[in-house]
């Protein structure tokens, strides 16, 4: 169902730092600790010198946090990073080359809830400077060439619609033919994107099928789970890594905590669906903090014959 693009959307990237701070109110750690009275507290201070940590709520000097790759120097909480920031953090400078940036979302269902999906796409694109929730391409991680995909939780909750699915499938196929190690870093609270209906669900099968072929060809897939990785993303490529790494204290799971609570009507245990919870239950290989991610990916590639 490929169509020619008719209107070029206006891509105006905003500041890449904390302006698009992701809504992490779902994170379990958000329910702990003191809450400010009245309306929802501001997440960070957009233009200022100081930030408020979402994890420990202490006030942090912005520059210090940025030097720490958006990790709180007080409590080690890992804040949102955009897909572009992630690429900057992970790749050797100037080596990343984007693939399939020309794929753009459409509105196959003419879906409309409170807002038409077609309008939502345009406003999300303007707000985030991204064309959809995943960036894919190739680059060097400590001089090792890899194929890499990154999802960005600020674009419709990082959900997977047809563009995310297609970009990832093409990425995986190219990694297969070019025999490249594959890294996918997930930040998707939204799972499969509702606005594209059944087509979004089918992206889970499509990407998983591409990974099956990649695996048969002997390729190494490292899946990195970051806050949040839920629903159809967790239940497809994110869980299929030969190695599965997670950043500390990320929310990771199949069903959303609210859905579970509404179904079983029991308070959820502390730390439920966090990286640490998954490690304890045997579903991830390692928890790796952001500062070490680059070197640990490189190390894993070396072990697996990259």
């Amino acid at each position, binding site marked *: 169902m490929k169509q020619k693009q008719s209107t070029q959307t206006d891509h105006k990237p905003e500041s890449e730092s904390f302006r698009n701070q992701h809504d992490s109110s779902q994170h379990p750690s958000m329910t702990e600790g003191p809450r400010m009275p009245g309306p929802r507290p501001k997440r960070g201070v957009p233009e200022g010198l100081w930030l408020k940590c979402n994890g420990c709520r202490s006030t942090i000097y912005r520059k210090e946090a940025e030097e720490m790759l958006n990790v709180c120097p007080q409590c080690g909480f890992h804040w949102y990073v955009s897909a572009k920031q992630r690429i900057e953090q992970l790749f050797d400078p100037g080596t990343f080359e984007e693939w399939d940036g020309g794929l753009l979302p459409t509105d196959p269902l003419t879906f409309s809830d409170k807002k038409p999906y077609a309008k939502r796409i345009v406003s999300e694109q303007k707000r985030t400077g991204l064309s959809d929730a995943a960036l894919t391409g190739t680059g060097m991680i400590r001089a090792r060439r890899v194929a890499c995909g990154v999802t960005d939780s600020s674009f419709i909750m990082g959900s997977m619609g047809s563009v995310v699915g297609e970009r990832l499938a093409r990425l995986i196929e190219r990694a297969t033919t070019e025999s490249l190690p594959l890294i996918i870093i997930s930040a998707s609270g939204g799972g499969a994107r509702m606005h594209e209906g059944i087509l979004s669900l089918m992206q889970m099968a*499509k990407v998983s099928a591409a990974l099956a072929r990649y695996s*048969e060809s002997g390729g190494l897939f490292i899946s990195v789970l970051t806050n949040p990785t839920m629903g159809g993303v967790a239940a497809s490529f994110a869980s299929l890594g030969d190695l599965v790494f997670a950043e500390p204290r990320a929310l990771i799971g199949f069903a959303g905590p609210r859905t579970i609570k509404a179904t079983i009507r029991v308070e*959820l245990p502390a730390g439920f669906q966090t990286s640490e919870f998954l490690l304890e239950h045997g579903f991830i290989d390692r928890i790796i903090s952001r500062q070490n991610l680059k070197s640990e990916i490189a190390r894993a590639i070396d072990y697996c014959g990259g």
Partner: protein
Amino acid sequence: MARGLHRLPLEKPIYELEDKIADLETAPLGQQAQEEVQQLRRECADLQKQIFGNLDPWQTVEVARHPNRPKTSDYLSLVFDEFVELHGDKAFGDDPAMLTGFAKIDRHKVLVVGHQKGKTLAEKQACHFGCAHPEGYRKAMGKMRLAAKYGLPVICLIDTPGAYPGIGAEERGQAQVIAESMFLMASLKVPIICVVIGEGGSGGALGIGVGDRVAVLEHAYYSVISPEGCAGILWKSAEFKADAARALRMRAWDLKEFGVIDKVIDEPRGGAHRDPRLMAARLKTFLERTLKDLVSLPIEKLVENRYDKFRRMGAFLED
């Protein structure tokens, strides 16, 4: 004709007419009364066609969830010559929400995998109303590997509101098993036929839904999320479930239009629950024909076609 205990509001006019016919038939019928009954029967048939030919999306969901709708266990006895149940995931337990076993159909030996909702309250509770746990998907995967080893085609009957959302399910890797199951099915070296017989609820459905042919019964649905779930997130209230059902385009012919399924299997007049035998006969015909087609293909070709089939799904613009 099967007369269930449960009547949907949309079925009320049909049952009223049928009650009227039944009343007339209690007394011995004269010539004139017989003609009247004949006429009423024709009207009733027309009414069923009219109502079930114009279900709105939410009504389709109601029919797909109809308590009397035939379930996997019904089709096991009505479609297959034999069913030999196989239990357990060899790791944690035996999830009754996922039925697996050997079966025979038209001289083919096959493996059947199907969601089970249960009939009595006790069964329904044991099956969590058709919501499987990770051990259910692990059981399905284990049996599918067995089928591949011995060349048995796999038939999946999908009927679930979704994979179970609970603490234990998360602890035992609900996301992991659904991902692994799709990964396995994508390259399983035997034919796979999937049929959504009632509810095709999200990842829980797709977890046994990657096949060479995917069919959907006329009044079944298949969706990325339940209409209630979608309404809760996007409309901020489950009361908008009918709006969500409409927006999600989750009905059989929508799915066909999007290229997600291969075939819509017609239901008997008034829905599958009005005539489970006829429904089963149609399902059987579909399965027999499809099996015949698929077993004649070389297995490498089959797996390649399966890959291409899912690879093509999606809608996007390209510069």
